[in-house]
């Protein structure tokens, strides 16, 4: 009896020992990932946050200057213009989602060669943005572009789509939609396939036509996928940089000053003007903006997204 009493006392102690070893091993196993995460994500984030309150020369340590960077940024008309450009671009690119739904539904109807269509739509996604931007620059060239040539055939006078600040954001949006279509199609296509076919069969017995089915079955059941795609598209649209850089970034494009996006401002500050602290501030402000927009979207989803 007595020995039985003593053993439970000893056991927990041994178990702690074993437990600690398991912890150690577990930590050792995930260490590569953990260190990578800390070094590549956590530390840069903390460092960016700190730098946003500093004046940082391109090389060497920075000096804290309080909220100077933030006041400078928020009182800079260029920032508000860039924010406006970015917001307009985001709204325009979201038009790509209904487009993707329609294409996804159409591809779903295709009986043979569905994969071929998916690949074709996905090609722009895996093409280098720089190459995409260059090709569209040729297409949209005001004097020699294909688009203006086609327009001239039907008697519409062309414009300088990528050299006139009135049109540049729209030009970016067209390319942005085209580039994003592939990813959206894959996600929405998967969503479509998960909708049970019995629902369509049952509703056609009740006399529902295709259009009614689309609005009463497809859309509601697809809404979680649509929501997901909307969040992704919004976030990536707010971070748009490559199209401005490639389509307008050449020397002396006079549309550039009025066509900048927020991330372009960031690039300009960090890599052209050598102001890392100010660039960090832009990054943090963009992060806050994206967080607010995403939070609003999550709030609004309750009104239109149906789960089950």
């Amino acid at each position, binding site marked *: 009896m007595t020995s039985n009493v003593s053993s439970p006392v000893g056991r927990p102690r041994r178990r702690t020992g074993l437990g600690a070893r398991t912890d150690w091993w577990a930590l050792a196993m995930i260490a590569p990932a953990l260190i990578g995460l800390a*070094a590549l994500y956590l530390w840069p984030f903390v460092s960016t946050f700190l730098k946003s309150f500093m004046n940082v*020369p391109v*090389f060497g340590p920075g000096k804290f200057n309080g909220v100077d960077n933030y006041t400078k940024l928020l009182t800079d008309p260029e920032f508000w213009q860039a924010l406006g450009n970015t917001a307009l671009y985001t709204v325009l690119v979201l038009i790509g989602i209904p487009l993707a739904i329609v294409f996804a539904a159409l591809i779903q109807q295709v009986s043979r060669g569905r994969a071929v269509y998916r690949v074709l739509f996905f090609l722009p996604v895996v093409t280098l943005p720089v190459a995409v931007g260059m090709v569209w620059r040729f297409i949209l060239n*005001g004097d*020699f572009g294909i688009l203006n040539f086609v327009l001239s055939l039907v008697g519409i006078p062309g414009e300088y789509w990528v*050299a006139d600040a009135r049109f540049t954001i729209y030009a970016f949006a067209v390319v942005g939609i085209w580039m994003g279509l592939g990813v959206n199609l894959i996600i929405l296509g998967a969503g479509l396939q998960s909708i049970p076919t019995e629902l369509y069969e049952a509703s056609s017995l009740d006399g529902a036509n295709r259009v009614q089915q689309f609005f009463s079955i497809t859309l509601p059941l697809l809404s979680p996928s649509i929501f997901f795609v909307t969040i992704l598209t919004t976030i990536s649209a707010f971070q748009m940089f490559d199209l401005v850089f490639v389509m307008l970034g050449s020397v002396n494009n006079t549309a550039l000053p009025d066509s900048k996006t927020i991330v372009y401002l960031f690039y300009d500050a960090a890599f052209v003007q050598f*102001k890392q602290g100010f660039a960090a501030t832009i990054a943090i402000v963009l992060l806050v903006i994206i967080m607010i927009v995403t939070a609003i979207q999550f709030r609004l989803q309750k009104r239109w997204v149906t789960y089950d």
Partner: protein
Amino acid sequence: MHKKWLAAAAAVVSVGMLTACSTTAAEPESTEPVTITYGLWAGTQTPAMQAIADAFHEENPNITVELQELPWPQYWSGLQTGAAGGTAPDVFWMLAQNVRPYATGGQLLDLTDAVAEAGVDLADYPQAVLDLYDQGDGKLYGLPKDFDTNAVWYNKALFDAAGVDYPAADWTWEDFRAAAKALTNPAAGVWGTAAPIDYQGGYYNTIFQAGGQVISDDGKTAAIDSPEAIEGIKFWTDIMADGSSPTLQQLSDTEAETQFEQGKIAMYMSGAYWALKMYQNEELRPNVDVAPLPTGKKQATVTSGIENVAYAGTKHPAEAAKFVMFASGPEAAKIQAESGAVLPAFKGTSQTWMDAMPEFTNLQVFIDALDYAVPLPVQGNAAEWQGMQADYLTAAWNGETSAADAAKAYAEAINKVLAEG
């Protein structure tokens, strides 16, 4: 336990930082074979640079030079992150408007002693280019690789078609403007000239020709709003108003140099660096000639040049310094000159450059221009204030505001940048 992990992580990180420790070029050369990297932006010069690297290796079998090419748009961001992270090339190309943060930030190897020891005579290089890189700290951070001055490239066929006389060597602003007007033929899609908002090949030259300056002598304030400088800007806005140039939008879509090669522009004010590209265009070649810049109140051209510099964080400082001196030296200059890609900075090698393009008979104007050349203004954070030119000058070019008002607004913006140091 967590502290241990943190310590381990910190150790990993600090190893990376230690490699960025500064070194001096005075360290002895390694006897083991070493490889150093040479960073440059991609373009027509690559074959010549490879030939220079090979020639250096032949002379120094122990040292291999590997070219590291980056496309121009990524060159500066790549170099900046490379230098901050300790992975920049051992030797690389530098531009005057970008050198300051690198020099003052301790990223460039001090070559003063190495150059003195090797007996390099700085008088062999254009003083204006050396001045551009002088940080006023008595240290030498690099050696000039090439230089460029500006002149007027013109298309003889378009002059003939319009019945306009070729530019005379002593022509004036009025002659230029009149010729531009006479050469413009909207029906044929031909413009007399191109007037992009281009500081180095364009309006800085005319500002100096009008007796103005871009930045004041003490480097602390802008001078671009002085009456003389405004005259220099007006030279271009007048040409735009005359309709003698494509619009800024057209020049944004298709660069002026491309339009010149397409035979749409008769006169293109720009640098010597286009010579080889135009020479290689065989259809265009017989029609191309070059004239000195027209004279305003006086003759003037801005000049600049690339320097070869070495990275302070290099593991092979002695070898890097040696290569800088070689790549800017007489033998490398000859290789560059023979390729025709660029005008070498080393004195006495320009004839070889001209001989590389025998059908261009007037290239001498680029060398003669050194007599009246002024250094490109690069005071303060030059990359920042030069980058703002389109924000302030576009309206004047489009005729929406006067040259004086645009210059005044731009000067205020430049002053803010200069005040930040």
